[in-house]
């Protein structure tokens, strides 16, 4: 039997996407479509005294204007994914108060976007400015301005999670390394911005949404609750999605369009412009982390104490996730006996923080891998050697970390050794020494990581004390049509991962077909796509969860087809095999039945079915990853389920006079288990690594003290271009997970997690006399570090 899984099959999507025949949200036409624009707050924090929309309503071409007060009267507050201790009401538009610059205050629907923007300028709002709170540490202080006075604090979650004998480990330690790290706000900024079309059918009181929302299951639940409409009267469709990376979600915009559609009787589209996208959609959470590491002089890491302040901005949808998710990689790849983690989840008057390729884990990895680099320096050990002394060993797999994460598989020492060899680590160290003699500053950075995949939502019980949602699950459908052709669908809308191809590969293997013979539905349509509340593109879950749904659905259909064929061929199902679209009796050439003939029986000649067999040849499968479990009595939880790993090696040169950093070489060796499509996997590794490099060197949402975003265009918010990144070399090990149906593990977030640490470690290695505590590493900052190093005369040589 041909095995398509594991082959670098060219993507089915690409014929349409390379020719401009993709169908993205903005490509969808609806008769009578109106275009919405939003009035957004110019203040970080203010009371809304009054809003006058009359002049906007009078503008020709304007069909409807919606204010926050009107939205609050016509809809219910938006349900949070993670409830706050005191329920906070948050509508689709600001009501009474704005809490970040860029928060939507009113919306206009007009015949075209330009007219809608003209109307927005005519809305008069009187604001009474309030004191902003921009810095999360200041937000914790007593007397800080409060976003929600009814909460009495800006802190949404503070806890102390202690695992193992932390104090004992620190007492026994030969030394303690203390350091403070910060991470900035940045984002993956998918090239297509976020948006939706909402249409209301007054006759049936049903709503249809077209949207590039990457998490349709959760969004449908919110829409139903907030609109006060049964979910049975909602339809949500996802077309091709132009990238997402966690950013593409904002149920408020769908609600605003739905209310405008109901008001005007016309379909309404809203699509963010780029400034709105950068100002108001979602930023990766910034934060401050205090790390204490207890070690023995031989380099053995004994314990960590970590205090972690996460700046949620005005995030009421998923606050606390940026802390909680770090439990998945807080031990990274190391055998660490004891961990104390003290999270603060803090509201500030800034853009909502949210999911962004790795959520919190890039910062966690940055802190741990920077600490390891500093420990190596302190102990005079090679950073590679220090890591090798602390890794979880392959023989220990599956290995449970103090916080309850179970590392399912992998060979961390072998991954690093492969990387060192391929990178010519020793040769490059010699090159570095030679360059230094010539006055050139070369630096080598290592960072190694675990890459968790599949979130177990039960972990939120740690915060709320009760379980609202749990597990990691997805739904899929496989159907052999009456003509014998195969169709499949998945509850997770692809956002660029090539699911149409990979699902076809999987189904093809199960049904004895080629991927070209399996049609996989584009995107998502709640009317036809099987789905769960948990459905969607998030948490790196495809390999560990979605694949199970696809395999399950395909096997159910295959088994049924074989039962029907066996009945017709008067053979035992076990004696049949599916090859080339035909069920054949093993060892009996010529005796078989094509899928077309089996389908005809299933759909048309139903009296020919085996006794007790239902007509039809379609199956839906809902797969829950079996590793998901509730929080245990010691507050341990498998917050994520399956773990890939990687080693990154980075060579940089620092230009001494200007502080400019150039990456001369970059290698990734990774292990995501069985690679379902190596071509797609390699692309994921390249892309996620560049997200890490961008965060390390270029990208930053900078706010001034008044809470105004200073980097709100692509001229100031700097994405890496083709000239800013190197040719990334990729190699891999393949240690299949015993806990996923095909042995695959997560690969979508891999590079973004260790990338920032690898680059920072390399630059610090080049400077050799300065500790890099924050990102991005701008030329000016490098220059100032070089000056400091020169003044203190602290230049070290390796």
């Amino acid at each position, binding site marked *: 039997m041909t095995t398509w899984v594991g082959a670098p099959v060219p993507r089915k999507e690409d014929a349409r996407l390379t020719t401009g025949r993709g169908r993205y949200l903005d490509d969808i036409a609806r008769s009578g479509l109106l275009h919405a624009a939003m009035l957004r707050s110019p203040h970080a924090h203010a009371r809304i005294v009054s809003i006058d929309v009359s002049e906007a309503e009078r503008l020709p071409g304007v069909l409807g204007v919606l204010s926050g007060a009107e939205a609050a009267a016509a809809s219910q507050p938006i349900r949070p994914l993670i409830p706050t201790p005191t329920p906070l009401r948050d509508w689709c538009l600001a009501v009474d108060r704005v809490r970040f610059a860029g928060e939507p205050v009113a919306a206009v629907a007009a015949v075209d976007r330009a007219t809608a923007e003209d109307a927005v300028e005519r809305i008069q709002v009187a604001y009474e400015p309030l004191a902003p709170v921009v810095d999360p540490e200041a937000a914790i202080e007593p007397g800080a301005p409060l976003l929600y006075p009814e909460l009495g604090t800006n802190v949404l979650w503070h806890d102390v999670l202690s695992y193992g004998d932390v104090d004992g480990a620190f007492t026994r330690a030969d030394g303690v390394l203390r350091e403070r790290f910060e991470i900035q706000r940045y984002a993956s900024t998918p090239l297509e911005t976020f948006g939706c079309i909402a249409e209301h059918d007054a006759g049936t009181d049903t709503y249809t949404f077209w949207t590039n929302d990457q998490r349709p299951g959760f969004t449908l639940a919110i829409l139903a609750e907030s609109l006060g409409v049964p979910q049975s009267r909602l339809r949500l469709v996802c077309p091709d999605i132009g990238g997402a990376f966690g950013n593409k979600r904002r149920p408020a915009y769908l609600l605003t369009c739905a209310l405008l559609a109901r008001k005007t009787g016309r379909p309404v589209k809203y699509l963010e412009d780029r400034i709105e996208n950068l100002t108001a959609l979602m930023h990766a959470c910034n934060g401050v982390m205090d790390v204490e590491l207890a070690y023995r002089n031989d380099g053995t890491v004994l314990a960590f104490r970590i205090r972690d302040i996460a700046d949620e901005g005005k995030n009421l949808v998923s606050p606390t996730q940026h802390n909680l998710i770090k439990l998945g990689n807080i031990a990274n790849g190391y055998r660490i006996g004891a961990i104390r983690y003290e999270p603060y989840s803090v509201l500030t008057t800034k853009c909502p923080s949210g999911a962004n390729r790795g959520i919190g884990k890039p910062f966690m990895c940055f802190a741990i891998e920077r600490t390891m680099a500093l420990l190596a320096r302190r102990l005079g050990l090679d950073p590679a050697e220090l890591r090798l002394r602390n890794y979880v060993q392959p023989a220990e797999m599956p290995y449970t970390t103090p916080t309850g994460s179970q590392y399912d598989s992998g060979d961390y020492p072998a991954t690093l050794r492969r990387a060192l060899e391929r990178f010519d680590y020793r040769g490059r160290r010699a090159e570095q020494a030679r360059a230094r003699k010539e006055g050139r500053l070369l630096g080598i950075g290592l960072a190694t990581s675990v890459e968790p995949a599949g979130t177990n939502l039960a972990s939120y019980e740690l915060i709320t004390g009760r379980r609202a949602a749990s597990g990691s699950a997805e739904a899929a459908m496989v159907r052999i049509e009456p003509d014998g052709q195969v169709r499949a669908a998945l509850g997770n809308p692809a956002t660029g991962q090539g699911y149409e191809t990979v699902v076809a590969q999987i189904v093809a293997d199960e049904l004895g077909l080629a991927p070209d013979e399996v049609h996989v539905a584009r995107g998502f349509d709640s009317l036809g796509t099987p789905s769960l509340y948990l459905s969607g593109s998030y948490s790196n879950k495809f390999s560990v969860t979605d694949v199970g749904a696809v395999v399950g659905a395909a096997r159910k259909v295959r088994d049924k087809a074989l039962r029907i064929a066996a009945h017709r061929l008067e053979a035992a199902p076990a004696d049949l095999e599916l090859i080339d679209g035909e069920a054949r009796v093993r060892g009996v050439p010529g005796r078989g039945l094509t899928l077309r003939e089996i389908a005809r029986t299933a759909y048309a000649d139903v009296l020919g079915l085996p006794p007790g067999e239902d007509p039809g040849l379609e199956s839906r499968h809902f797969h829950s990853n079996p590793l998901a479990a509730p929080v245990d009595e010691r507050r341990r939880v498998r917050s994520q389920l399956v773990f890939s790993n990687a080693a990154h090696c980075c060579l940089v040169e620092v230009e001494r*006079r200007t502080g400019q950093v150039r990456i001369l070489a970059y290698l990734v060796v990774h292990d995501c288990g069985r690679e379902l499509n190596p071509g797609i996997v390699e692309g994921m590794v390249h892309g996620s690594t560049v997200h890490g490099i961008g965060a390390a060197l*270029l990208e930053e949402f900078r706010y001034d003290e008044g809470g105004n975003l200073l*980097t709100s265009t692509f001229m100031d918010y700097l994405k890496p271009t083709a000239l800013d990144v190197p040719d990334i070399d990729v190699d891999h090990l393949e240690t299949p997970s015993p806990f996923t149906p095909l042995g695959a593990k997560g690969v979508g977030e891999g590079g973004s997690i260790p990338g920032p640490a690898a680059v920072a470690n390399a630059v610090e290695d080049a400077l050799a006399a300065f500790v890099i505590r924050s990102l991005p590493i701008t*030329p000016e900052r490098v220059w100032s570090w070089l000056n400091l190093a020169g003044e203190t005369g602290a230049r070290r040589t390796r």
Partner: protein
Amino acid sequence: MKPAPFAYVRARSLDEALGCLVADPEAKILAGGQSLVPMMNMRLARPSTLVDLNAVAELSGVDAAADGGLAIGALTRHTDLVTSPLVRERAPLLATAAAHIGHRAIRNRGTLGGSLAHADPAAELPAAVLALGATLVAAGPGGRRRIAADDFFLGLFATALAADEILVAVETPPHRDAAWGFAEVARRAGDFAIAGAAVAAIPGDVGRSARVRLVAFGVDDRPIRLTAAEIHLGDPALTPDAAAAAGAAAAGCCHPAADVHASAEYRRHLVSVLTEQVVREAAGRRAARREGESRWSQSP
């Protein structure tokens, strides 16, 4: 992100365009549009009339002047400055500066005149024409006038052009045998410079020393002459040693502002570094040419 409403005029002649400026004081000239249109899309610029010059054929093209210089039409695109053999021969500094602008699609549309009239203090072409000592030709209701580059840039996005004038051409002086250098530091290739420097050292007539013009950009409200640094750079003194002295003097000549990409202090530092670098570059070019010439004269 859509522009506010405006009227559009596709001018067929310079006179028609000038007439539009008189008729509507809020009118704006549209040339390449690569700076103006983003500002319009963000509604930071709201001209009531957009006067499109692109169909005025007389404003394009590069002509060789009899004195060995060039006359370059204001509508000449950056890409054409980069690739034109005439520009590369007679004003290589200008070709090099143009190559640093944005990316290919931007250079294909952006124009020399548009960049100069916009007068972004961090832009490359204003610095280049200032270093070259070029002459800018403006047309207005009363006819044409010629403005020395030294007198053209008045401040942040401000020039000597009157509201009813249009920049129509740039004349570069004879440039044969000139030594020159150009360098900038930007966060990414194609971005506006955090700081930059340009130098042109034009050989004087027999018995007279060279004219050396040293310019910095991105470090003041306009591109500026580094006169205090220029005094280190007489013709015989266009040497690596002089480069260091000029670099040291350069920082004191500018008044940089801080923005999201860099502090004033860092910009001042970069001016020194880049000044030294461009002078070394120029010195290297001169040395290479002299070596080439002497080899030429020795060959049989």
